[in-house]
């Protein structure tokens, strides 16, 4: 063997890994850290709003928290947590050895992480961005927002690059790396929704990158795209932002739908009802999701014609979404349902998401939206979608895939307790916010006057936040407890599940499948359990497996981008320690230099020899 794998230290191994499974776990850890950070900010904001005229936070800090909470939750918590599952599960579910471009996959993670660090760095340079997660101009222009907003612009720009290249990688993987027999119409729904969500990222993150670039030019280099007094247009920013921002909701919620579509059939012991309808409903949602951005801007003054068109287009999305909801219900109907923690989260997702969808249709009515606009009703609506939809699905996916990812179960008793505390807390927090909104409490305010009928509901809402926080603490306890005392899983298929990821042994060998499986049906593993001997038939003989070498270059490239972004931000600082141009150009030199090294240096990977594969097979007993 010319190229055998070298023994490496653990830390070096994780820093240089290009293995999709390790990157999935890294996404999970990074996403969780950001999730907790943004969650703590939310808790502080709710404490500030617990009583009228509280002095827990200052108005400025509240604005910074509200901006960072939204930005982090969407870009640095929800997206990476979904990417964690996509990374880990997609290659396994389609019977592939890895993603199409393992190096690019690692690059995507590190760039996202560098962008996230850049954004978080704002706290050490005079406070975070404070113009809301939408960063509407002129509030976010140089006249009104300080250097914190430059961290927002450049941090999102950098982490957006990471998201974009990861999405392209998923697209190529799903198109090219499917096992023999895994046709497009046999893809598990999670793969399908991830595929469509990646397409949305491809088409939606590009306008975001363009918009952020324009805002950066405005703020740092004195351009005037968004400055009306210089001939610019402020509303243009809102359009560009929402052309990205509305699809972003579907980027997040479609993979969540996918998780639900995996968990519900697995624990109902039935195949997914209406698979084809589910696939096409997903596509229609994605397409319509693009064409409705202006419903965020009904009150901008677009005129009745534009408002009506966008209102009707928005309401149309309810139709394919309804198809999905009913298909989940029909999947459960008559099924032999096991209510473990994953299924509790998945089944409770359905009614909560419907609640969020219903208020969505309410908001889509343009005339009524003048009433709801910028009140807590909107806050309640999108938290029902994002927490009641995406976060519940993420927890379902966590409990479902945890044994495959970490080799042991999460504790069920603690899990169920966590579910109930979190679920009750969630409704306590956000249901009353609908009512607060209808009473006229505006969003994004840091305090309110007493005796206006707002006191009780605000108090209840804050109590709910404590419940949710307690739930998340319980999850952390569960993770730590299970790591030491949890039930070990050595079998490949602890849930008696349906899809291919449960056909590989636990722990998953680095090459996933010793032999690429032959797929004969939708739900391939379940098909083999019924019609075969319960194991996947190989599509190839046992042969040496070609694997890519790890590389430190993704980390170095992302460090370069980090400093390039930091350099641009420093141009707006009052007295930077060093010349910003040195930092920016130095960063770009590092990035492009390591790209050059990557292009010139030949790296042919290594082979896992046949004897090793056979030894693993014997050990795995599969």
């Amino acid at each position, binding site marked *: *063997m*010319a*190229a055998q794998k070298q023994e490496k230290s653990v830390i070096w191994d994780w820093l240089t890994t290009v293995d999709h499974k390790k990157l999935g776990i890294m996404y999970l850890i990074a996403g969780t850290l950001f999730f907790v950070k943004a969650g703590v900010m939310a808790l502080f904001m709710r404490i500030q709003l617990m009583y009228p005229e509280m002095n827990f936070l200052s108005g400025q800090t509240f604005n910074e928290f509200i901006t960072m909470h939204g930005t982090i939750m969407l870009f640095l918590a929800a997206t990476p947590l979904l990417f964690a599952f996509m990374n880990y599960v997609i290659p396994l579910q389609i019977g592939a050895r890895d993603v199409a471009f393992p190096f690019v996959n690692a690059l995507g993670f590190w760039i996202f992480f560098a962008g996230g660090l850049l954004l978080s760095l704002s706290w050490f340079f005079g406070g975070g961005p404070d113009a809301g997660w939408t960063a509407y101009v002129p509030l976010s222009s140089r006249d009104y927002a300080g250097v914190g907003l430059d961290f927002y612009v450049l941090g999102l720009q950098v982490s957006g690059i990471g998201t974009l290249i990861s999405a392209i990688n998923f*697209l190529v993987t799903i*198109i090219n790396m499917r096992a023999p027999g895994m046709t497009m119409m046999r893809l598990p729904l999670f793969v399908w929704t991830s595929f469509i969500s990646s*397409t949305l990222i*491809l*088409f939606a993150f590009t306008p975001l990158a363009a918009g952020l670039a324009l805002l950066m030019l405005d703020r740092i280099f004195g351009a005037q795209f968004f400055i009306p007094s210089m001939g610019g*247009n402020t*509303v*243009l920013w809102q*359009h560009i932002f929402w*052309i990205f921002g509305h699809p972003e909701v579907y980027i997040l919620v479609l993979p969540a739908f996918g998780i639900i579509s995996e968990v519900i059939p697995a624990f109902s012991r039935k195949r997914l009802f209406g698979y084809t309808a589910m696939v096409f409903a997903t596509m229609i949602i994605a*397409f319509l999701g*693009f*064409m409705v951005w*202006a419903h965020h801007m009904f009150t901008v003054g*677009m005129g009745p014609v*534009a408002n009506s068109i966008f209102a009707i287009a928005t309401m149309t999305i309810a139709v394919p979404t309804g198809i999905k909801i009913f298909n989940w219900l029909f999947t459960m109907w008559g099924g032999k349902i096991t209510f473990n923690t994953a299924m509790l989260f998945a089944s409770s997702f359905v009614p909560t998401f419907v609640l969020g969808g219903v208020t969505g249709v309410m908001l889509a009515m343009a005339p009524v939206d003048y009433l709801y606009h910028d009140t807590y009703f909107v806050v309640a609506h999108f938290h029902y979608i994002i927490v009641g939809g995406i976060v519940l699905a993420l927890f379902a996916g966590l409990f479902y895939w945890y044994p495959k990812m970490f080799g042991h179960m999460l504790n069920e008793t603690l899990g169920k307790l966590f579910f109930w505390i979190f679920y009750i807390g969630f409704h306590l927090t956000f249901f009353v916010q609908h009512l607060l909104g209808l009473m006229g409490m505006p969003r994004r305010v840091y305090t309110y006057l007493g005796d206006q009928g707002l006191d009780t509901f605000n108090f209840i809402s804050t109590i709910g936040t404590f419940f949710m926080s307690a739930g998340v603490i319980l999850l952390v306890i569960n993770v730590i407890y299970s790591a030491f005392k949890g039930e070990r899983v050595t079998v490949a298929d602890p849930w008696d599940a349906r899809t291919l990821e449960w056909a590989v042994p636990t722990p998953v060998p680095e090459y996933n499948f010793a032999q690429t499986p032959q797929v004969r049906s939708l739900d391939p593993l379940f098909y083999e359990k019924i019609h075969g001997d319960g194991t996947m038939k190989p599509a190839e003989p046992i042969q*040496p497996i*070609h694997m890519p070498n790890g590389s430190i270059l993704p980390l170095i490239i992302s460090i370069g981008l980090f400093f390039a972004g930091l350099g641009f931000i420093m141009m707006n600082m009052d007295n930077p320690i060093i010349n910003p141009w040195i930092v920016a150009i130095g960063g770009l030199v590092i990035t492009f230099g390591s790209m050059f090294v990557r292009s010139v240096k*030949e790296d*042919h*990977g*290594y*082979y896992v*020899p046949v004897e090793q594969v056979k030894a693993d097979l014997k050990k795995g007993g599969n």
Partner: protein
Amino acid sequence: MADNLSQPFDKSAMTEEEKRQVNKEIRKQIVVFALMIFLTIISFLAVGADIVPRSFAIPFILLLAVVQFALQLIFFMHLKDKDHGWATAFMISGIFITVPTIAALMLLIGVVKY
């Protein structure tokens, strides 16, 4: 066994026929590239040197732009190639999404004069 796979090959693995195809492709791309530069020069001349009457200038440039866009898609984005279905599908869905989006955006912010 598979040691040699990690080494660079000493001569090209392509057959003569494949080499001919590649050369043909390269020639085609250079011709189209030259044509596109020519189109760009014409459009600059048309406005800069007032060769085309002022009233006709904008439609004329737009026409050239459409031609160039088509050439770009067909030759450089490989729309003409076989076995390129997925890329073509993505390109078409991209156009399907961006054209109405940009049209709607222009209408909404009032860019109606061309």
